[in-house]
């Protein structure tokens, strides 16, 4: 069963989507919301696998909601006519449905969502939710948006109240800013994948290319994209513990 939440400010629009989803027995609707505050509560309460998200809503857009979430479920956007808003997604494949929603398109979008759900539910990846590396976060920096799997993120770097997120997208390294402190991020990142290298950086262990000693007795890590990160002596000891495991 895929557990889904419907988020749309119009009652009739929600009713219509519910009616259409009734034909898909693998989807269970666990919540409904008419604005992004309600939506956040519903998502926190039900931990859905999938959300249907209207782009334009009173009090905040669908994007505002996603930015607030610590992790994002699979998202299918529903929109009447927002070509402009959806252009923000340049790289990430994302699903959106135009209202009125065609049953065929809905079925295709659900197929994809179910496919992703099955992968995430496979025993290999199955683990406690807040630590899953296939989890995605939503980043909106200016006009551009990304859904990024935690597993694809190489490095978080502190910039005041923001964190710069380094990840590979195609051949380019993207480095947008997100409104999260490094401490907030550290709390919810999986310790077996992400290592707090110093005050300013959290590094993804899977992206470490080379490690060597520094003159001050610490360690210098080189990431696969040639970013160099220095570890203090204390952190270096921790790092050795982790990497020897």
């Amino acid at each position, binding site marked *: 069963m895929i557990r889904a939440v419907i988020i749309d400010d119009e009652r*009739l*629009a929600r*009713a219509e989507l519910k009616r259409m989803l009734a034909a898909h027995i693998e989807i269970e609707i666990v919540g409904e919301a008419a604005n992004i505050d309600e939506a956040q509560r519903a998502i926190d309460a039900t931990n859905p696998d999938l959300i249907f998200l209207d782009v334009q809503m009173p*009090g905040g857009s669908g994007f505002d909601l996603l930015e607030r979430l610590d992790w994002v479920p699979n998202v299918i956007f529903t929109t*009447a006519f927002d070509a402009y808003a959806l252009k923000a997604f340049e790289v990430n494949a994302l699903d959106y449905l135009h*209202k009125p929603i065609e049953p065929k398109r809905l079925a295709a979008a659900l197929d994809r969502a179910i496919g992703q759900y099955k992968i995430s539910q496979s025993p290999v990846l199955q683990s406690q939710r807040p630590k899953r590396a296939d989890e995605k976060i939503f980043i909106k920096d200016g006009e551009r948006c990304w859904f990024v799997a935690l597993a694809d993120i190489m490095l978080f770097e502190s910039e005041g109240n923001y964190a710069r997120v380094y990840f590979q997208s195609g051949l380019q390294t993207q480095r947008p800013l997100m409104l999260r402190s490094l401490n907030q991020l550290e709390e919810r990142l999986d310790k077996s994948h992400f290592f707090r290298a110093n005050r300013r950086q959290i590094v993804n262990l899977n992206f470490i290319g080379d490690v060597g000693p520094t003159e001050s007795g610490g360690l210098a890590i080189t990431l696969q994209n040639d970013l160099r990160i220095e570890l203090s002596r204390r952190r270096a000891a921790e790092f050795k513990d982790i990497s020897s495991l």
Partner: protein
Amino acid sequence: MARQSLNERVTNEMNVIIPDLQTLSGQNRNYWICQFAGWGSVAAFFTWVFGSMMPAGYVTMGVIYSWGAFTGIVLSHGWRLLLKRRRWFSRNSRPPWLGIAAMILLLGTLQALLVGLGFFVLRPPGMGANNWDWLPSAIGGWVMIFAVWTSLYSYTISSRRRRHLEAEALRLELYAKDAELRALQAQVNPHFFFNSLNSVRALIFENQHAAAQMIDQLAGIMRYTLQSNENATVSLAREMEAVNAYLAIEKLRFEDRLTASIDIETGLAEVLIPPMAVQTLVENAVKYGVERNHAGSEIRITAKRMAGHIEIEVANQGAITQAATAKESTQLGLENARKRLAIMTDAKADLQLSESDGWVRAVITLPEKKGAAR
């Protein structure tokens, strides 16, 4: 004012300025009148001057200078044909003054020799000198005359060209205005249209009668919007029909979040406004007052007669949001409505957006005269 009439106006104003093809022959006739009058005067002048001075008398001089007028007309007409073919005065670049001066010198010399031939043939008494002493002063005189001829000709040509350019500029301006008006005509708001279709589909399963009614209203709005491009003005009553249908549909979408009240003072039903002017403001009010706000908003539409003008007000609860509006279509819609009002009333109408006591008010002010159109 039917929209065709703008085109008619363009044509009318052009006719005042640009003589059409028929008057081209008029131009030619004027040319010949000037030629004969000019050279005739020259001949008359010389006949009078030399006839009174010389013993030969007026008759002989008259004959010689009639001949001179004839050769002058022939030479200057040839000169005109050359000027026309080379377009020395009618193109945009500077005329080749040196070539023109040389031609004037040549024409003056030829004319002096031809008139001299007349003297040689008739040999008037007292002027039978067999030397060429007379030639330089004769050439000088005729060169002067051809120079005057040429400058009159170039002045005529260039002033005619200037009139053409002015007319052309005016024509372009009017066409630009027309095109602008066309571009400003309201279009179906796609966001509204698709959301409405979505609501209708939901309604079909909930309440078939309401769904049928909604389709009627939607069709009404579509038709009204599409037809609005055909007329430059529409009565307030007709516009309000569309506004009512629109509000009924939005009421189905937004339910309790939208309430509307309409108060049109009696006697204002036939006031003429640009089509979609009020509708655009109501769409704006719904977008910013209702759609962006959980609690929704009341929308108040009022039209009343004030001292010397008519005010149509569309108000919604909320605040003017300045940020992020530049790109949005309704902001453009507002700007368009303003421009259409200005074009329709020669800038005598006004559209103002203001905020007070938690209400955003958009007010159209129209001159009192019914159908403020020109």
